[in-house]
C-alpha cells in the first residue's frame, strides 16, 4: 500500500517575517474559529468565501492552485497528495522552509507523536533509523499541540527514537496528556531501560494515569540475541530489570516481540520464558517485521517468510495463553497465519485502506486483515493469497 502523505512541502504566504514553526488546526470553513491556530480547510472558492465570512484569517487550501477569495491573511497551499486532510487535523508548518508535517489526523485511531529521533539502541530492523540530533524542541511542539486536539480523543501514542532518553522532560508531558486528553489511552513505545532506575518508575507511577501503557521490546530470552538485535551490550539486563520494576509498581507493560530470522527460530522458547518469568505482564504482541529502514539494509540477515514461523506462532501462542497472558499478533496478513492463530491477529497497520494490492481484491478477510506494506522493494510472503471462505473469529 502507499502510505498517506504525512509530510511534504507546501507554499505558505502571508505569514509574518520571522515566523518559525507554526501549528495549524484545520477547521471546516462553516465553523467559527476559536483558537489562534485555527485554519479553514478549503477545497473550492465557495469554501474560501464562507471561511472569510466566518472570520477565519488562516486558510489551508488543497489542490493545484489556490481557490481565490480575494482575502488577505495567512495561506498555505498543499498539493493533492494531502487531499486526505480533514477538519480536526493538526499541521506543523515551518514557515522559512515551507515544510509541512501532519501531527494529528482526526480520522485515525492510531495517532502517535514522535518524541525524538535519538536512541540508545540501533536495532537491526529499525523502521525509523535514529539520528543523533538535538531535537528537544519536539517536546515543546507536542505541548503546543495537545490543547488543539479534540479532548474526547480515545487514544494517543508516543514513539521515538527512544522516548525515555530524557524522562524528566517526557514524564511531565504525559502528565499534561492525562489532563488535556482525559479519555485517551496512552501508549508509549520505549526500550524500557530507563525503568531500571527507581526514580523513573516512581515518577511514572506518580502520574496515576488510568490507562497508560509502556510497550517494551524483548526480542529473545537469550541476552546475547537481544543485545545483538538492538546493537547494545547490556540492553537485555536493563530492559528486564525495567519491566520488573514497572510491574512491581503496578504499571501496565506490553512486551513486543518483532519476528524475523534472528528471533523467530526461538519464538517458542521466548514465549515459554515469558510465561514462566513474566506471567504478570499485561499483554504480549508478536509482531511481523516492517520491511523498511534498517530492515532493508539487513534484509539478508533478517528476512524470514512468516509462513516458515507459522508453527512456532501456533505453539508460542498456546504457551502464552495457557499462562493466562493476553496476546495479539500485529502486522501480519491473515492469509500467512496458520488458521488456528488467526483469531489473535489484530488489524494493526494503520491506514491500510487506500491501495489494496490486487491480490487482496477477491479476499473475504480483507476487512479484518492487517495487510502488508507494499512500498517499494519489500518482499512479500509466498503465502499471500485470498481467503475464500469467510473467516470465523472464534472467541479466544
Amino acid at each position, binding site marked *: 500500500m502507499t502510505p498517506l502523505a504525512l509530510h511534504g512541502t507546501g507554499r505558505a504566504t502571508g505569514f509574518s517575517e520571522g515566523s518559525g514553526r507554526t501549528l495549524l488546526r484545520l477547521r471546516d470553513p462553516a465553523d467559527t474559529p476559536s483558537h489562534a491556530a485555527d485554519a479553514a480547510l478549503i477545497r473550492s472558492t465557495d469554501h474560501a468565501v464562507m471561511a472569510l465570512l466566518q472570520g477565519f484569517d488562516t486558510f489551508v487550501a488543497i489542490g493545484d492552485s489556490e481557490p481565490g477569495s480575494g482575502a488577505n491573511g495567512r495561506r498555505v497551499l498543499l498539493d493533492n497528495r494531502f487531499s486526505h486532510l480533514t477538519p480536526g487535523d493538526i499541521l506543523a508548518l515551518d514557515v522559512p522552509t515551507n515544510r509541512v508535517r501532519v501531527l494529528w489526523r482526526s480520522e485515525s485511531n492510531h495517532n502517535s507523536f514522535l518524541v525524538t529521533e535519538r536512541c540508545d539502541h*540501533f536495532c537491526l530492523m529499525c523502521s525509523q533509523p535514529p539520528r543523533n540530533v538535538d531535537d528537544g524542541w519536539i517536546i515543546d511542539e507536542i505541548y503546543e499541540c495537545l490543547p488543539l486536539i479534540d479532548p474526547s480523543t480515545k487514544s494517543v501514542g508516543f514513539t521515538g527514537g527512544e522516548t525515555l532518553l530524557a524522562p524528566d522532560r517526557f514524564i511531565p508531558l504525559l502528565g499534561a496528556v492525562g489532563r488535556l486528553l482525559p479519555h485517551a489511552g496512552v501508549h508509549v513505545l520505549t526500550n524500557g531501560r530507563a525503568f531500571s532506575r527507581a526514580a523513573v518508575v516512581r515518577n511514572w507511577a506518580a502520574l496515576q494515569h488510568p490507562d497508560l501503557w509502556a510497550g517494551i521490546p524483548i526480542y529473545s530470552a537469550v*541476552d546475547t540475541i537481544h543485545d545483538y538485535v538492538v546493537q547494545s551490550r547490556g540492553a537485555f539486563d536493563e530492559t528486564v530489570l525495567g519491566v520488573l520494576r514497572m510491574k512491581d509498581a503496578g504499571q501496565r507493560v506490553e512486551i513486543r516481540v518483532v519476528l524475523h530470522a534472528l528471533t523467530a527460530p526461538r519464538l517458542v522458547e521466548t514465549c515459554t520464558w515469558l510465561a514462566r518469568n513474566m*506471567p504478570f505482564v499485561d499483554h504480549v504482541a508478536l509482531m511481523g517485521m516492517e520491511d523498511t529502514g534498517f530492515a532493508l539494509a539487513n534484509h539478508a540477515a533478517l528476512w524470514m517468510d512468516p509462513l516458515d514461523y507459522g508453527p512456532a506462532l501456533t505453539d508460542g501462542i498456546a504457551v502464552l495463553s495457557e499462562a493466562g497472558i493476553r496476546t495479539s499478533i500485529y502486522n501480519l496478513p491473515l492469509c500467512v497465519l496458520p488458521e488456528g492463530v488467526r483469531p489473535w491477529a489484530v488489524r494493526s497497520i494503520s491506514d491500510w485502506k487506500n491501495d489494496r494490492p490486487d491480490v487482496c481484491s477477491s479476499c473475504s478477510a480483507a476487512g479484518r486483515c492487517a495487510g502488508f506494506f507494499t512500498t517499494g522493494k519489500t518482499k512479500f510472503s509466498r503465502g499471500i493469497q485470498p481467503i475464500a471462505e469467510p473467516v470465523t473469529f472464534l472467541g479466544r
Partner: protein
Amino acid sequence: MSRFQTIDAYAPLDGQLALMPIRFERLSPERVIVANTVGDILVLTQVEFERLIALDLRPGDGLYERATERLLVAREGARAPLQLLALRLRSRMAFLRDATALHILVVTLRCEHSCPYCQVSRRNTGAERYDMSEETALLALEVAMSSPAKAIKLEFQGGEPLLNFPLIAFAVEAATRMAEVKGKAVEFVIATNLALLDDKILTFCQNHHIHLSTSLDGPADLHNRNRPRPGGNSHALAAAGIQRVQEFLGRDRIGALMTTTDASLDRVEEIIEEYVRLGLDGIFLRPLSPYGFAMKTRWYDGYDSDRWLTFYERGLRHILDLNHRGIRFPEFYASLLLQRILTDQPIGYVDLRSPAGIGIGALVYNYDGKVFASDEGRMLAEMGDQTFELGTLGKTDYASLVTSERLIDLVGGTLSQTSPECRSCAYEAHCGADPVYHHATQGDAVGIKPLSGFCSRQKGILRILIETLERGGRDAAVLRSWVSR
C-alpha cells in the same frame, strides 16, 4: 564497513559466564536432569551436561541458548537473572504469607466401620467420651479465627464425623458468625464415609455450601474388603451416597479419596473406571500412610514404593488415555506437582511444602482439646507418640501454638532447601518436607532420604511427569491442562 556489529560483539566475554545455583539428577547413564532453584528444568545428554558444568558454551551452539533461557547460566554481573529467580522464589513461597489456612476439627473418634488400615485408630460407636464438646469446638474456632489467613478452610474429620453431626452443625453456624465479624472467608469440608448421610444432613450442607469428601477404594469387592462394616455394605452406601450428593448438591460438591492396599496393586484400571462410573471428577492415587491401624495390622508393609510406583504409572497411563477419549479426568496428585513444575503459584497443599505445612499450614484440634501440628501428628499421638502435640485448647492461643519451640524446631530443622540429599536434589523445588512421615518411619524428622518411601515415590512420580512433559505431544498437553491457574 557496516554500521552494525556482528553477534560476537555481544557474546559473554571470556570467563564472564557463570553457573547459577543448579541441581541435577541422573535419569540414565546417558541423560541428566538439571534444575535451577525455582525448578526450571532441562534434560541434557551426558556430553551436554559436562559442557554445561565446564561452561563450555558459546552463543549459537544451542546449549548456550537453552541454558540461558532456563536460568541455569548467566553473565557475571548481570542483575536480571538473579532478580527473576528471587521474585519467582518469593512467589513460590507466598503460602507463608497466609499462615494456617486449614483447620481440622476431629469431632469424634467413633466409627461404625472397622477398616484394618484405619490411620486414626477409631473407637467403637458407643464410646461417646470420644466426641468433641461444644465448648472445645468454640475454643478451636477461636484459635482458627485468629490465624492470619484471610480465607480459611474448616475440615471435619473423625472417626466418622457424621456420628457427631449436631456438633458439626453447631460449629458451622458459630464459625460463619465469627468469620463475618473477622472479615474472613470460610469454607467447610466434611470427610465422611457417607454411610450415615440423610436428608437433614444434605439440606444443612446445601444451606452452608459444605463440601463432602469421602473414601472410595474401587470396585465393590475391593472396597468392602478394605473397609469392613456390619452388613458388609460399605461400597453400596458410599456409591449411593456419592450419587445422592451429586444430585442434591451438584457434581462439584463431592470428591473421593482412595487408599492403595496390597489388593489394589493389580487393579488400578478397575479402580479408576469405578471413579469414572460414579461421575467423580478425578482421582487421587494415594499410598497407605504409616499411621494408626495400618501399622498395627502391618498392612502398611504390604508393598514397597517400587510396586506402588508401578501401580501409579499404570494408573496414570490409563487416565491419560481416558482424557484422550475426551473425558476430562485428572489425577489430583499429578495436578498438584504439575502446578509446581509449570507455574510459580504458591502451593495450597500442606504436604508439599518446605517450610513444612505443619502448624503454619494446618492445625488439628482433637476431640479432647489437644492441638496437633498435622492430621498425621494426631494419628501418631493415638499410637502414643506426642511429638506433634503443640498444646491444649483453653491453655494456649494461636500465636503460642505456632511459635512454640517444638514447632519451630520441627519446621526449621527439616527444610528441604537445606536437608541432606534434598538440598542437592533436582526435584527439590517441586517437593516438600514431610517431617511427620520421616519421624514416624525413621524416628527422625529429617530422615535419611535414600531410605525414605516418601522420597522414592516423589522422585518416581516427578520423573514420570517430567519425562512425559519432555516428550511433548498429546500426553503432555493433557498434563498441562490439569494445572489450574
